[in-house]
């Protein structure tokens, strides 16, 4: 009969209409600000610098590998000078340009010292824009405990090195599926 297909269509839509009142999978809207969907641990926001909870020292040794690995060249950093004028193994300035960063995660994979990880903070909308989009060290630093909280799997892969940080990067635990040596630049 000519109109049968139209009636079937109306049946499907009516069923969706009626079932949306008592079946959860027929009403899928998540009311965003009030209800929030849990973010998966591997979610890639903007990168942040990790510092050890106890010593408070940044794990970054200013080796410029992340800056070279970034496709969008959005990381600039300079090595600090020690008291005796010799270069010290920590960054003096570390700026990340949010306007260029596309959150691809290559910097985290390129960092041999596991000083970088991906944040879960995506609500960065602001009404006025006081500070420019370039984040400095103080806005980028986060404790290691924060990483354990948002991305436990990455945290145990980047477990803090038992030896002193300045002793040069000796081999970290071999099997680490996240970041570290195997991945090519």
């Amino acid at each position, binding site marked *: *009969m*000519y109109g*049968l*297909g*139209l009636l079937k*269509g*109306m049946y*499907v*839509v*009516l069923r*969706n*209409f009626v079932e*949306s*009142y008592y079946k959860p999978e*027929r*009403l*899928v*809207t998540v*009311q965003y600000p009030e209800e929030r969907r849990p973010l998966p641990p591997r979610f890639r926001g903007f990168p942040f610098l990790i510092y050890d909870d106890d010593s408070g020292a940044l794990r970054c040794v200013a080796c410029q590998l992340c800056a070279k690995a970034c496709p969008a060249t959005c990381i600039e950093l300079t090595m600090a000078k020690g008291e005796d004028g010799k270069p010290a193994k920590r960054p003096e300035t570390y700026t990340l340009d949010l306007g260029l960063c596309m959150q691809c995660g290559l910097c985290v994979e390129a960092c041999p010292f596991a000083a970088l990880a991906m944040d879960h903070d995506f609500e960065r909308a602001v009404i006025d824009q006081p500070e420019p989009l370039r984040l400095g060290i103080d806005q980028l630093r986060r404790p290691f405990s924060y990483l354990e909280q948002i991305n436990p799997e990455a945290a145990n892969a980047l477990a803090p090195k038992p030896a002193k940080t300045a002793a040069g990067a000796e081999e970290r635990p071999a099997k680490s599926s996240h970041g570290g040596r195997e991945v090519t630049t």
Partner: protein
Amino acid sequence: MSMDNVWIAIKQAAVGAARDVLYPLLDPVLPAWITPERLMMFASAVISVVSILVIVPLVMMYLTWAERKVVGRMQNRFGPNRVGWFGLLQPIADAVKMLTKEDIVPARGDRFVHLMAPVLILVPTLLVYAVIPFGEGMIAADLDIGVLYFLALSSVTTLAVFMAGWASRNKYSFLGGMRAVAQMVSYEIPLVIAAVVVVMRVGSLSTVAIVEAQAGLFGWFVFQPWGLFAFLIFLAAMTAEANRSPFDLPEGESELVAGFHTEYSGMKFGMFYLAEYFSALAQCFLAATLFFGGWKGPLLPGWIWIFLKTFVLVFVLFLFRGTFPRVRVDQLMGFTWKFLLPLALTTVFVAGLTYYLPPVPGWIVGAVLLTGTFFVLMLPNRRVTLVRRACRLEN
């Protein structure tokens, strides 16, 4: 004083008050020829006009809210629920938005015609509510040519749509305007013939008489074979008249951007939006009056019945909007001239035939004749036999 004519009592009280209180108050000021009776007549006219102008826009505003909630639920989402509780203030928010938006007139467009089009589309759709019987005796103007008045006015909107299309000096709106004229003119005919079927059986054009003729539950015309088919034709033609879903070609978003009201913004666009809902609501009211026995119905008072029936029909329009893709222009024309019109003519013939036959055999004869024509008429239209095509799976 049953619930049925509570409104009539209120009106009479108000008119009485106008005579007793208002007239002595204004007597020194009024010119001599205004007698109390004339003042009462004027007061009752003002009351019915004001009541329509208050109730209908209110119902219409919450019709837009209901549409977005219902179509939302059909699509597994909530629909507006941010503005006010359950989104109830959404229509008010829309109205404010429409008022505050900048009102753009296209540079080389025809300024006067561009301004007149929204007026010409809104006024007739409001005038049309004068003949709709909201209840026992609750009708603004009980014209004895009610249905004719309704159909004549509702065809004026075609002109306004084309004016809008032409004056916007934009190719898309021009195409939209041309489509609108073709569609509305050709769907006017089945609409009128479907109404004529009922008028013929009742013998009067007055909407009140039509409702009176549908006594009792099974007295509704929709239970007659010819009444059912006339209603189906009326439903199809009504959807096309109001430019609503399967036939929303004049404002086909996907191809004509926004059809004839592409160049309209601010309150002018608001008036088109209002007019579309007003005419859809008015035609649902008329369908309820013609085929579902207006205010007739057990238990509940009359004016609740007509609103219930109209909202059921409006829900059907929402369902159309949520389900159907858009028909193409030539299929739209083909559907009217090759399917709706012949079917409408046979319905008129069957209605006339069964008038002379006794009720029960008449019903059967009518039903057989009409379903026969329905299937016969489907053959030329079924250019596409129901395609049961599945793709062959190879490796």
